[in-house]
């Protein structure tokens, strides 16, 4: 199934998890070039969103590779490397 993932689909999974972990975010209008923090996520929310997304994608990406990531799209691209 792994080859079925597109970047857009991965972004969707991230946004879905962001929606589930934040209280008042409207993920319909989120620009993938924005960061989760722009939408009020604190560092623990980010960890949770990343964990939940990796779980769903069945990958394990080292956190140390995520420290320089600046926005949702870059996160999706990093996940794509592991799919």
């Amino acid at each position, binding site marked *: 199934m792994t080859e079925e993932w597109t970047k857009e689909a991965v972004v969707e999974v991230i946004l879905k998890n962001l929606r589930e972990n934040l209280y008042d975010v409207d993920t319909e209008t989120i620009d993938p070039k924005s960061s989760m923090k722009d939408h*009020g996520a604190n560092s623990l929310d980010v960890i949770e969103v990343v964990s939940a997304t990796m779980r769903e994608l069945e990958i394990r990406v*080292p956190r140390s590779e995520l*420290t320089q990531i600046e926005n949702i799209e870059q996160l999706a691209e990093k996940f794509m490397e592991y799919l």
Partner: protein
Amino acid sequence: MGPDEILKFSLADFTYNDSRDVLTPPGDFDTWADDPRISVAMSFFEQPLQEAPTPRTTLGHRLSGEQRPMINLTSYNYLGLSTHPEVVQAAVEALEVYGVGASGAAMLSGTFDQHEAFCEELAEFKGTGGCMLFPSGYAGNLGAIQALMQKGDVLVIDSKCHRSIVDGAKLAGARLATFEHNDPASLDQQLERFEGKRRMVVVEGVYSMDGDVADLPALLEVCEAHEVPLYLDEAHSTLVFGETGKGLSEHFGVEGRVGVHFGTLSKSFGGIGGFVCADERLIRYMKCYASPFQFSCALPPAVVAAMRKSLEVARRDETLRRRLWRNVERFRENLEVLNLDLGDSCSQVIPIIVGANGEELITMAMAAQERGLYLQPIDFPAVEAHARRFRISVSAQLTEADIDEACNVIEDVIARPLGRVGAA
């Protein structure tokens, strides 16, 4: 996970367990932890001290089992009260009277005359009407925040706050918002964002991984403009900062503007436990809703008797604090000569920031231990990946000779490999 991937992973990566069986750790965690390079790094956890946590002690090496004499820069025994003769004597005498355990939760049968007297003394010391004790510092923050906050509330914390504060918000069901470390403008923004909600701000006196201190005057000004109370965690600053050792709030002369004063008994006090000082009526209420207080056995009476003596000694004998600060100064002077990155430390907690290379950090830690220096490496995710470090806890008990010897080792095993000082 291939051998070349092992070092990319860290403890941050295995919180999620993909095993079907709850009692089986994730398969790749075992692969990772069994790797010899990771085993070496993990051998720095839970290394058993064979003697008191004083500057000269003996450490059991986890991998070889060998016992080695060490200069200890890792224990939180800042004032040396853990082994102070009067403190030990107080514990021994109380043991004879009360036995070992409290045998009950504080609200039921676990409160002794010692607990009651100590709470009065701590409240008087911190200048509040009330005080309650917890079985540990972690339990103290967890329980106090649980009792104060509820679903719908927002706990606004400094981004470098301790895990116990984060977990307190989780237990309370409150929303957690973080502001940029020590940044009043960022705090203002977060308080603005949640205007209308019940809010509380939490900051720490001394930040444990960086050794810097809260900018209390500026942060309090923001809190007051929003009419939001400040909860101050003085785990590392009580008995260290302030004219009489009350903490950072005394240092800045803002004691009366702090809503809740939190402290631990496991650092400068030299024992174990946590305490919260606040308005008497608030403490009465909190006692009824702080689970770690209600559902833990109370602190052993002998520990409380010893902690009373610690407080008495620390208040009576200012030379302990003076010696600590003299040692901090001597350490800093020596480390600055070595051109080491000490971050923004201005306390008895002094980090030596090594950088992004985790393998190098562990190699240095091993070399230090070989040379008889017990220096704890602090790796990602405990600190940011680009700022892995060692952390020095300065003690009043260190002699000048101890400090000079320690700094010689630091020069050889950290400063030289980092290219901070010449190879000559």
